[in-house]
């Protein structure tokens, strides 16, 4: 099941909070079929960018187009069917069972898809994330890693073209991080688009097809992981001494962080 290619075009985006400019002059052309990682220091504007693309925040200036249509001209439900969003600290207010939680991802399709289609999508998402065995378990009884998988299943159940995930790996142990990354990779392999924010440089280098680094509301690097995560950029943005290390014999790369940069 491969979906048609989709693209998101962001031009001249500016977003302010009060008088503070959080994002400025953002121009991006995102293509589906790739994992795009957005990096940058705390407060750089990563989450704000994601929220803008998800249609949750309305930028002051600039435009966001989804396959040529302005994002804000789409009805909220229509937008939600195309772009799914996984918030940074996902809230689960009630102790509902896993299946019901995953089913919430089908809300944008209400009245458009049959109960049967909804059930199939939910089951498919649960199988893909390997949470089907917990279908009747209450989410409050799950561990952090298990819950993260269930929340990812909720996003997958929407079968949207795009998945935007705000720090999806935070709080997960390395094994669960890779597991979540593999799930997002599978979405991309089927033609979907994934945009995520991330702090772990090595993980970003390994899982992303494209890395965008934001500092102080502006894009300072955009390219393949190797092009974007250079020692110079990392020093400028994070104030650290770091080095890209190619894995030996085709093993994945690592970014070695030596410490805080000594400013010359």
């Amino acid at each position: 099941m491969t979906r048609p290619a989709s693209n998101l075009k962001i031009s001249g985006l500016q977003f302010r909070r009060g008088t503070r400019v959080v994002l400025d002059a953002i121009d991006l052309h995102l293509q589906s079929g790739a994992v795009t990682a957005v990096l940058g220091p705390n407060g750089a504007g990563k989450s704000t960018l994601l929220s803008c693309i998800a249609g949750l925040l309305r930028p002051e200036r600039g435009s966001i187009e989804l396959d040529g249509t302005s994002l804000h001209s789409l009805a909220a439900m229509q937008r939600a069917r195309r772009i799914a969003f996984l918030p940074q600290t996902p809230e689960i207010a009630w102790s509902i069972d896993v299946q019901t939680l995953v089913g919430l991802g089908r809300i944008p399709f209400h009245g458009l898809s049959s109960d049967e289609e909804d059930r199939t999508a939910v089951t498919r998402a649960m199988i893909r994330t390997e949470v089907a065995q917990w279908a009747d378990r209450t989410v409050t009884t799950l561990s952090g890693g298990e819950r993260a998988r269930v929340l990812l299943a909720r996003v997958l159940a929407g079968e949207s073209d795009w998945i935007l995930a705000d720090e999806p790996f935070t709080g997960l142990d390395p094994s669960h991080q890779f597991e979540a990354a593999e799930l997002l990779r599978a979405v991309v392999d089927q033609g979907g688009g994934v945009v995520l924010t991330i702090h772990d440089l090595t993980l970003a280098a390994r899982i992303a097809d494209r890395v965008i680094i934001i500092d102080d509301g502006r894009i300072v690097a955009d390219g393949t992981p190797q092009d974007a995560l250079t020692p110079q950029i990392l020093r400028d943005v994070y104030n650290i001494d770091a080095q890209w290390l190619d894995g030996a014999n085709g093993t994945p790369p690592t970014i070695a962080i030596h410490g805080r940069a000594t400013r010359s």
Partner: protein
Amino acid sequence: MTSRRWAMPALLALVVVLAILSVAVGRVTLTWDMWKAQDPVSRAILIELRLPRAILGVLVGASLGLAGAAMQGYLRNALAEPGTLGVSAMAALGAVLSIFFNIAGLHPWVLPICGVIGGMTGMAALFALSGMTASVLSLVLSGIILSALAVAGISLALSLSPSPWAATEIVRWMLGGLTDRSFDELTIATPLIVVGCIAVLGCRRSLDALTLGETGARSLGIDLNRAQWQLALGIGLIVGGSTAVTGMIGFVGLIVPHLMRPLVGSRPGALLVPSAIAGAALVLAGDIVVRLLPGGSELQLGVVMSLVGAPFFFVLLHSMRRKLT
């Protein structure tokens, strides 16, 4: 899952049994033989007194149960309810003010409409005071503020009341009951409550989506602004309409969703209809108990509900204490 399948039919059956009991039980017990004998007195008791009372009990109980479940879902807080958060008191204040300013007599609709306006004002004030992401603390405090304001307003109206009749009427509202209700009250309350219930039920999906928090709901395409106004309108109509004819009946909306969660699950949208049915059962049962209690005059239903509800509230609060600190 198995418990969910029998829960609804069992609840409906319970409501039917309680409704029949409610029609039959009272100072005069009506039996099938009396009905068959076409005794005019028992007929009058049935049609003029018991039937409107039973129907009103179902209507008010169901809508208050629904309102409580919806408020808990919207505020993502298991302590929310129109009664405990002062919305009922605001509705009562609206009704009381219409008596105080002597406009209630102009038309039978004036008082209920004033109740609805009071209820909706209460909802709007609650949302404004506690904000969207209401913590237990800010919610309870907002409720205290609203209740205090409404009770003060009612007391003021009471002490400055223009006539003894007005004072008596005001007291009746503060206690709440289904006693001596006729089809006239029913025709006024029914449309308000039914429209309110439809508005609240229309928020089902928004309430479900809010399980994932405000951001989660909005990312699922939910227009939270609209949901908020629809709920304020719906709950305002329910609480205003029911308060206008039965006075303040608290705690129904608090107790019922808690009893239903183990039976039908915690998804807010799925909780609405079962809470309505259970609310009807609770109010009918309370009203039957009121009639069966020994003593010269009947205890008011609002008093009985509070006697049951307040300890329930306490237990709930106690079990949530860890969350609060």
